[in-house]
């Protein structure tokens, strides 16, 4: 066995030692010596090997005594997050596939029944070894709201670029240090571009690594921009204007708005961010009572999951948002501008 540092280090974990020997022989017969193959017959043995030397890829069997392969994948994800992980099983079921991927497997493969089949498996594992994950994450608009992603990025004061695309639209939203600084789609930039992108009924997005925008076209508070985007989206949806070419952004609104305060707390009442007052307790209590009331109303009327409460005031608006495990309070004051 060679010990070259340039070789990929691959660890196979299976409680059947004969299978491990066969696997090594098959690989060496058909693929040569590009990989340095290590073997372990239990999870404990695998963990010892991982603690003592560099491993690039671990391939785990599911059915093993004491700690099964799916549990081992979960442990590896926590202990060795950069390690590539694959599951190789003789009994592939949709449940095992889902559990494996959910626990952190990058690949789920069924054991082959012929040497040719193992060639395909080795090719897939070689692909996995070459694969380099991009920064950020991807999503589908119908499953994850763009507003939610922006909100997370802004609350975490991250810098990133949200790339959005569907059949007809390609756009970018730039977030710098937790503030929305630029949006562009086609010829459109600034707030109009932002509202258009946030009104898309579907598509995909990718959160890319930040790079400086060509210009800065957004300068409002992100909470206010998102709130206005939600209003524009509602208006366009009510008018049946969901297609890009029908989309209308408000013509120079005569109303100007100013963010008065924002508060974020957990459902259990722990304040995470408070830009409202010294004492957050009245707002936290109100948010909790609103969510409770929304749940009760949801039990009476089958209207779907609660999204937000909009309170229209004589001089502004208060929003109570329910997002994942968080409740958000936003207060905006509005004043009529000159005619």
């Amino acid at each position, binding site marked *: 066995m060679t010990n070259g540092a340039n070789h990929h280090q691959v660890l196979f974990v299976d409680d059947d030692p004969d299978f491990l020997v066969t696997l090594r022989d098959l690989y060496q017969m058909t693929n040569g010596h590009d990989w340095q193959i290590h073997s372990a017959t239990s999870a404990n043995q695998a963990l010892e090997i991982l603690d003592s030397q560099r491993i690039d890829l671990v391939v785990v069997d599911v059915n093993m005594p004491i700690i099964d392969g799916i549990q081992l994948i979960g442990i590896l994800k926590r202990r060795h997050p950069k390690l590539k992980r694959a599951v190789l099983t003789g009994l592939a079921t949709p449940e095992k596939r889902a559990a494996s991927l959910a626990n952190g497997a990058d690949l789920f493969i069924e054991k082959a029944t012929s040497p040719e089949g193992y060639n395909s498996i080795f090719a897939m594992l070689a692909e996995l070894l070459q694969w380099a994950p991009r920064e950020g994450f991807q999503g589908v608009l119908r499953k994850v709201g763009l507003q939610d992603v922006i909100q997370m990025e802004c609350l975490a004061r991250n810098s990133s670029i949200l790339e959005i695309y569907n059949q007809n639209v390609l756009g970018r939203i730039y977030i710098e240090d937790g503030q929305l600084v630029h949006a562009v789609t086609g010829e459109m930039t600034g707030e109009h571009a932002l509202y258009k992108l946030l009104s898309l009924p579907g598509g995909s997005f990718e959160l890319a690594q930040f790079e400086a925008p060509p210009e800065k076209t957004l300068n409002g508070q992100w909470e206010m921009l998102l709130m206005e985007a939600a209003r524009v989206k509602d208006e366009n949806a009510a008018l049946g204007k969901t297609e890009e070419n029908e989309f209308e952004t408000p013509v120079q609104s005569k109303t100007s708005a100013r963010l008065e305060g924002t508060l974020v707390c957990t459902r259990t009442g722990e304040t995470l961010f408070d830009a409202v007052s010294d004492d957050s307790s009245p707002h936290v209590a109100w948010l909790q009572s609103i969510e409770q009331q929304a749940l009760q109303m949801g039990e009476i009327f089958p209207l779907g999951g609660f999204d937000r409460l909009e*309170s229209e005031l004589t001089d502004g608006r208060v929003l109570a948002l329910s997002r994942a495990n968080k409740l958000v309070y936003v207060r905006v004051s509005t004043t009529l501008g000159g005619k």
Partner: protein
Amino acid sequence: MNEYFEQWLDARITVPGMLACGITSVNMLDSGIGAVDATAFCRSSDPGFSTHQMAQVLRLLQDTPFAPETEPSALKWRTWVFGNGKIRATIRPDGLLFAAAVLLNSNADQLLDPLTEEFLTLKTAEQLVPQ
């Protein structure tokens, strides 16, 4: 005067997308009378949104503060936005509470603001005092 409100509700429930709507008096509910006859001022256009359910929602609405207790400004209305619909509620200085459940992106959804304004400015409305 009750008949007046009933006619107003009869007309509004026909707007496409209006699932249910109702009016009650906060004072009446406080007295416990609302539990008996609040459904009389509720309308429904969908079996899943009955007048009885509407009355339950009206009762629920009066229990929660419209804004945090520190909020200095007067409230015009509140809108709960759910995945498939909205519930709009507003209360007049004379204690009359109006609420409507509408389908998201429907005609009724589009007309929520003018409809609420209409309720708030009804000139002939007086207290919904029973008897």
